[in-house]
């Protein structure tokens, strides 16, 4: 069976990725950690923004909150509890932001989320200066890089699996209807606010966990590092390059771009930002719908029939 073959292949790939730390040097493993982090970020971002059309630039707000929860609590609480606490903090922020902003349409939502990330950064900075007294924090944890990598790998796999399930569920259809026409969606009985909020919260919690899991890699953090807006932009452009509304789109966008960014920052450290900007523009012009859609249309030029995703996926496990 075709679907059984796909599952076996996926499990083998996952096993190979999980075994990677045993065969890698520190540099290679560090690269893999960064890569897996961005795969997860792009996947979680696309889970909400790619499916609803609400473009969020708040990625780094949640990412940074996750990192700061670990920095603040790793010495007083056991690690799993810190992760739970980080997830709850991300959830709380997502609910507050979601309830107040998901009525905003189009560009207003984009601007609000960008402003939110800056606001959170300024608030944390203010708190650190006026309450804690020092701007930076140290994170000393005995967690080896391979453990961080495995957690991120698990999170990436979970994100893909959740996305796959949602795309085939009623929720997935609701999202596609909402993305097409919110008036029709409401008149079909879809609760717009609840649907969007649920997905925004899910996406935000995953992003928060990426920040929390990666935090020990830094050893030292301050607001400018944890809340660096470049994280939001990189996540967005990776998801867009691959195709934000497709299951594998964010992965296909994140892998080549992350490696390219690493190479650029190593070889052109002084011109990195300029090259990054040019690359953003090139992507938006060249592949506005993403790599997955591009490949599909190339394959389908002779074939008129359109494959309905939600309708034929029912029979699969």
């Amino acid at each position, binding site marked *: 069976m075709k679907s059984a073959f796909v599952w076996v292949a996926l499990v083998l790939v996952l096993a190979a990725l999980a075994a990677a730390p045993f065969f890698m040097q520190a540099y290679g493993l560090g690269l893999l950690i960064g890569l897996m982090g961005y795969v997860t970020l792009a996947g979680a971002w696309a889970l909400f923004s790619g499916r609803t059309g609400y473009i969020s630039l708040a990625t780094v707000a949640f990412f940074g909150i996750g990192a700061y929860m670990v920095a603040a609590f790793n010495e007083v609480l056991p690690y799993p509890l810190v992760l739970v606490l980080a997830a709850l903090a991300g959830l709380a922020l997502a609910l507050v932001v979601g309830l107040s902003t998901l009525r905003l349409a189009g560009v207003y939502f984009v601007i609000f989320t960008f402003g939110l990330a800056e606001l959170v950064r300024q608030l944390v900075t203010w708190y650190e200066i006026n309450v804690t007294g020092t701007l930076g924090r140290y994170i000393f944890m005995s967690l080896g890089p391979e453990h961080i990598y495995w957690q991120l790998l698990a999170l990436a796999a979970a994100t893909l699996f959740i996305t796959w399930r949602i795309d085939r569920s009623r929720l997935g259809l609701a999202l596609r209807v909402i993305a097409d026409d919110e008036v029709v969606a409401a*008149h079909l009985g879809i609760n717009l606010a609840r649907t969007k909020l649920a997905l925004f919260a899910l996406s935000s919690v995953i992003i928060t966990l990426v920040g929390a899991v990666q935090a020990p890699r830094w050893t030292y953090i301050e607001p400018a590092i944890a809340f660096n807006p470049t994280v939001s932009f990189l996540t967005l452009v990776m998801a867009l390059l691959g195709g934000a509304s497709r299951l594998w789109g964010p992965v296909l966008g994140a892998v080549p771009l992350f490696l390219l960014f690493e190479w650029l920052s190593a070889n052109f450290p002084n011109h990195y930002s300029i090259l990054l900007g040019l690359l953003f523009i090139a992507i938006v012009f060249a592949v506005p719908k993403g790599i997955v859609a591009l490949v599909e249309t190339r394959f389908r030029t002779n074939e008129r029939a359109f494959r309905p995703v939600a309708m034929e996926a029912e029979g699969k496990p």
Partner: protein
Amino acid sequence: MSATLLTLSSLSKRFGGLVAVNEVSFQVAAGEIVGLLGPNGSGKTTVLNMISGSLRPTAGSIDLAGARLSGLAAHRIAALGVARTFQLVRILPSLTVGENVLAALAFRSKPLWGREARDRADALLEEVGLAGRGEERAADLTYIDQKRMELARALGAEPRLLLLDEWLAGLNPAELRLGINLIAALREKGMTILLVEHVMEAVRALCGRAVVMNAGVRIAEGATADVLADAEVVRAYLGGADD
């Protein structure tokens, strides 16, 4: 006479200083087709929009079989059994024809999903004359077929009240005949329909009763033939040259 399904009481809608609908009241009994008539800009679509929850009434109330609709959000009104088509047909362009109907089945108060839903969607498409075309992209359909699909989507909700906003507008004579037959078949099944329509042939053929609006006010109500012969209605449509 069967039981009253829909009751509008002193319904009003103001947009700033403009009174689009002014203290309109009427009732629709279960199983009847009522025509909501009037010149362009008389407030007919605004009334439909308030019933379906697109707009909130400024004053007055709307009740469906004892449940208060006015003030509820559109998705809750849909759950109580109101479905509609739109004056400017609203398809879900990135979905297939089948998925457009499936969306109605999946989110109604008794949802259908999976094989059962696909079979039901196919049956609905057949009912409106789109048999076997579920795999096509909705955006590729012709105008008349988009209207058919929109009707199948509205029927998929299994509504107690169906609102049709100029669903027969823009059809050629042959298509119009088919469209009228389609709605007549719904009446045979006991569907309650409130329709806004300018095509008088359809109004005469389908509507037992009619309500006429002009400049936001209800100016006539009664049996369709009587209402259309009413002097004030004729004046509203043709202009009051003799005033």
